[in-house]
């Protein structure tokens, strides 16, 4: 279930959410998606080189609840887009086993002004962290440990 085909683009709409089982190129995605919006705020999160105890990390594994996960992100993105008066919202999120430095999450928000773009981008990222059924497992020396809580803001 976790490694099925996960693409779920919603190109025509103002909200696009895709869960990738393979690496994505954030710059190609942004170039394709952003068009000429006056204001675009973006956030890119990557795998840290260290685990939560500061030791060298081998890989980070990301699991999700397919279907529910995309639905929750899409609903949050629509709600936050309306709330902040933004224009379009893009969310790309990886699942699977990722080496350090690999992109995990990309959030991009366009708007007519910098304030709505920045505020909506930050809010979508928080919603992702707290409301979407994703789980991280740190791998080190062949041993996996599920994380119990998110990194602090």
């Amino acid at each position, binding site marked *: 279930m976790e490694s099925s085909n996960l693409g779920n683009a919603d190109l025509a709409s103002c909200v696009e959410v895709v869960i990738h089982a393979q690496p994505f190129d954030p710059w190609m995605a942004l170039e394709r998606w952003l068009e000429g919006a006056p204001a675009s705020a973006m956030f890119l*999160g990557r795998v840290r080189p260290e685990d939560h105890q500061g030791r060298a990390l081998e890989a980070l594994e990301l699991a999700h609840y397919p279907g529910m996960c995309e639905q929750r992100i899409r609903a949050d993105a629509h709600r936050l887009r309306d709330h902040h008066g933004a224009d379009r919202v893009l969310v790309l*999120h990886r699942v699977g086993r990722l080496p350090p430095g690999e992109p995990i999450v990309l959030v991009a928000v366009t708007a007519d002004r910098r304030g709505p773009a920045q505020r909506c981008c930050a809010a979508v990222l928080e919603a992702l962290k707290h409301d979407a059924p*994703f*789980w991280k497992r740190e791998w080190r020396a062949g041993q996996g440990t599920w994380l119990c809580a*998110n990194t602090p803001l």
Partner: protein
Amino acid sequence: MGDNDQGFVRVLLFAALRDQAGWGERRIPVSPADTLTALELWKTLDLGPWSSSWRVAINQVLADPQSPVRAGDELAFLPPFTGG
């Protein structure tokens, strides 16, 4: 839910819960007359004590652990989310 799901609740476990149980998905038979809550169904699975940090989704929507589940439902037990 297809015809095959009639008479069953589809139970999903994720992440640490899945590892701990040793399985990720099961079909649990329930009779149409049953009025079982998610938490009561958890107890029948023999997976140890319930933690208040876990959450329940019924048909992919977050629900109170005391919510009733019915034949044909998809019931998921979810450890704290750690995405983003």
